[in-house]
């Protein structure tokens, strides 16, 4: 067990490293990033964009005193360029403005064939481009010391942007999980004890519906329901007008009021799955020999069901609990978007659109971590509940 745990935990860092690497590569190789969009805006100066790039670690400024040594004289498009000792651009023996030569200097390779790329901005600043592989390892180094970088869009640390949103998503998912588990076990037991009864058919129907109805559609229906019945707020997470004046309890009630519908929508799918599983297990266990023995020795129906059958039937569901932990961050994705729940989903979609790369990287990392840990917990729970299973 311990070796199993250790091995799984040890395999985690390389797995996350590979995932991050591919995500990083994907973001970089498709061409165009957050800054190229900025560059297209005529109101934003090239120097400003380059300084943003420098602070994001995409380029490294070349200091004025080092320029002369590094470049010497270089020829681009038939013109000879060099730097003087003060780091000013020199063309044809006289200091010159880089603005006139932007077609050459915007991005060039020097020495030709070396792969090192430089940009000399309109105001004469010199930047060296960082290759994406090197950029990736710089990112990994930062992540290792707990720095997820700074979001381009929000101009704030990724950690602060994600933390808030993640806690909102987790609130929603955990309440949904509570609804799903709280209802599915009693309903599953109930219909499992009476197979092919009316209640069994109704539960079976609800389960089929819950597994087939797309969450987008259900969320939209819930929004319409909220609007026409007036019983629930139409989307959002809190009362925008009165929130600040509310007492603690008022806030709690308001939050629960806003949570009710989205959590039910998210929970229905889980409810359907667990209920079917619970029912199947219950039916199977009730036909086992030890249950027959228990009945034969005259135990009450109640004791047989709750003490003998249920305790054994519930074991396999523990695995599902692990899997539902794995889906905590991703299970409510589309519901959040539809019902305006300010969770991780909106941020990720916006970040993908805006090419806010540190944010996308962090979101993928966190989601993957959650999934892998959830699967691990599922395995451990299973081994803990069923001593016959040996993890190796």
């Amino acid at each position, binding site marked *: 067990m311990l070796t199993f745990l250790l091995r799984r935990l040890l395999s985690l860092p390389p797995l*996350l490293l590979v*995932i991050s690497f591919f995500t990083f590569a994907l973001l970089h190789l498709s061409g165009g990033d957050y800054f190229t969009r900025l560059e297209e805006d005529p109101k934003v100066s090239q120097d400003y964009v380059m300084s943003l790039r420098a602070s994001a670690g995409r380029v490294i400024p070349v200091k004025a005193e080092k320029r002369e040594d590094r470049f010497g004289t270089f020829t681009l498009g038939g013109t000879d360029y060099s730097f003087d000792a003060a780091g000013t651009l020199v063309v044809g023996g006289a200091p010159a403005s880089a603005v006139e030569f932007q077609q050459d200097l915007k991005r060039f390779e020097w020495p030709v064939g070396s792969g090192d790329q430089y940009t000399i901005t309109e105001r004469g600043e010199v930047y060296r481009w960082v290759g994406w592989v090197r950029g990736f390892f710089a990112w990994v180094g930062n992540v290792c010391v707990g720095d997820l970088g700074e979001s381009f869009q929000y101009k704030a640390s990724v950690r602060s942007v994600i933390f808030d949103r993640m806690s909102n998503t987790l609130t929603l998912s955990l309440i949904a999980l509570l609804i799903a588990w709280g209802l599915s076990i009693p309903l599953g037991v109930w219909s499992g004890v009476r*197979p092919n009864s009316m209640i069994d058919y109704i539960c079976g129907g609800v389960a089929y519906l819950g597994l087939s*109805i*797309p969450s987008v559609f259900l969320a*939209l229906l819930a929004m319409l329901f909220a*609007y026409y019945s007036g019983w629930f707020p139409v989307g959002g997470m809190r009362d925008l007008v009165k929130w600040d004046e509310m007492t603690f309890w008022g806030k709690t009630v308001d939050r629960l009021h806003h949570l009710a519908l989205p959590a039910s929508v998210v929970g229905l799918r889980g409810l359907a799955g667990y209920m079917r599983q619970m029912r199947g297990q219950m039916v*199977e266990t009730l036909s086992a020999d030890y249950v027959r023995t228990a009945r034969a020795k005259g135990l009450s129906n109640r004791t047989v069901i709750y003490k003998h059958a249920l305790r054994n039937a519930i074991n396999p569901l523990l695995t599902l609990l692990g899997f539902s932990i794995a889906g905590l961050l991703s299970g409510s994705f*589309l519901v959040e978007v539809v019902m305006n729940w300010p969770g991780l989903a909106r941020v990720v979609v916006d970040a*993908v659109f805006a090419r806010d790369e540190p944010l996308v990287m962090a979101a993928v990392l966190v989601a993957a971590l959650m999934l892998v840990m959830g699967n691990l917990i599922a395995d451990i729970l299973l081994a803990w509940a069923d001593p016959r299973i040996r993890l190796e």
Partner: protein
Amino acid sequence: MSAPASLKKSPGPWHMLWIRLLHNRVAVVGLVILVILYSISCFAGFLSPYEYDAGDRDASRAAPMVLGGYTASEREMPSKVRPEQTVTILERQWTWLEGGVHFHDQEGDFTLRPHVHPLVEIEFRDEYGERTYMRAEDRDISLPVKFFVQSETPHEVFSLLGVLPIESRWHLFGVDTPPDLDGTAHVFLFGSDAQGRDLLSRLLFGGQISLSVGLIGVLISMSLGMLFGGLSGYFGGWFDFVFQRIVEVILAVPGLYLIIVVGGVLRGIEHADGSPLSSSEIYLMIVMVLAFVYWASISRVIRGMGLSIKENEYVVAARACGVPTLQIVVRHILPNTFSFAIVTATLSIPYYILGEVALSFLGLGIQDPEASWGNLLRDAQETSYLVEQPWVIAPGFFIFLAVMAFNFLGDGLRDAADPKAVIDRRQKGGDEDE
């Protein structure tokens, strides 16, 4: 060589599977729903009264004509509506201007000939004396809704993914509008969107994309999954090791995140000359993204099956006879995973359909004016739009129908492919699966 009449040829395994499937009522319902859905989307051009991109801005935001016709939101409405203006108010929030399909003639008698009235803009003064415009029906002109009308230009009436298109001028139904008509006349059975495009037509054409994404995507990832999973299960060794690690990486990222990041990144791809991707290229890209995301789980299961099948005597025998390895995999191992593969494919098509819906709904997939079910639901993202025009969620119902039908069929196929498991379950007291 003549066999006695009593000794009929015994049905093959596929025939048996088919017979068992037909005995499953739920599976047959699923099959019928799917056949209907796929055929109406193949014949979308013929069944829909308009083209998916044909819009009339004067007829925007119409309510479904099956419900009553054009709506005007409260702010567009005069506060005092004179009864002779033929404006009926059914709901408090909305006012329903007549503009639907009518079954009553000028005298108010019922006729079997449905007709629409052209909509004209009427000018009147509201209670403050301000000049206001409102759409209303011109009751003096009746235009019949007819079966089999011809459009001015030929259009595709049948299309199988753009293959084998058949062109013609026929529409199943529509309104003939005289060229000198004052105002506009349309038949919008499901209403129209902000650009005045018929929602029913867009829904039918959207089905072509949303439904085919599932089939093509599953075909690609099944072949990938079977090839790699089969080889990996059979060979083992370093091939298996590398392959398993790749699968692990893909499976470690939540599917939706992966779809959105990959889809979002690929959206940024342009042609070398900077022009954006065409709609068919975007379609292909979506299929690729979905196939890439979902092939891993399939191949992992196939690998497991390959591992167990290769221990069977007939595989050992084939190897002893010196059959080349690839031939063993292709001829002996893969065919034994076919029934499983078909069940898995059927049960996983909903994920592809929902994946396309998610991508297009978030704006990363099919782009306007092209229509897909996810793309159509984008209109519902705006809450004010959703509550004023709740029928924009109609595509959601079709998605639901398709997903449910595939689940029905898949469950039925699984039971038919493995009858022993069903009998086991029955003996244990339940007929429910799992």
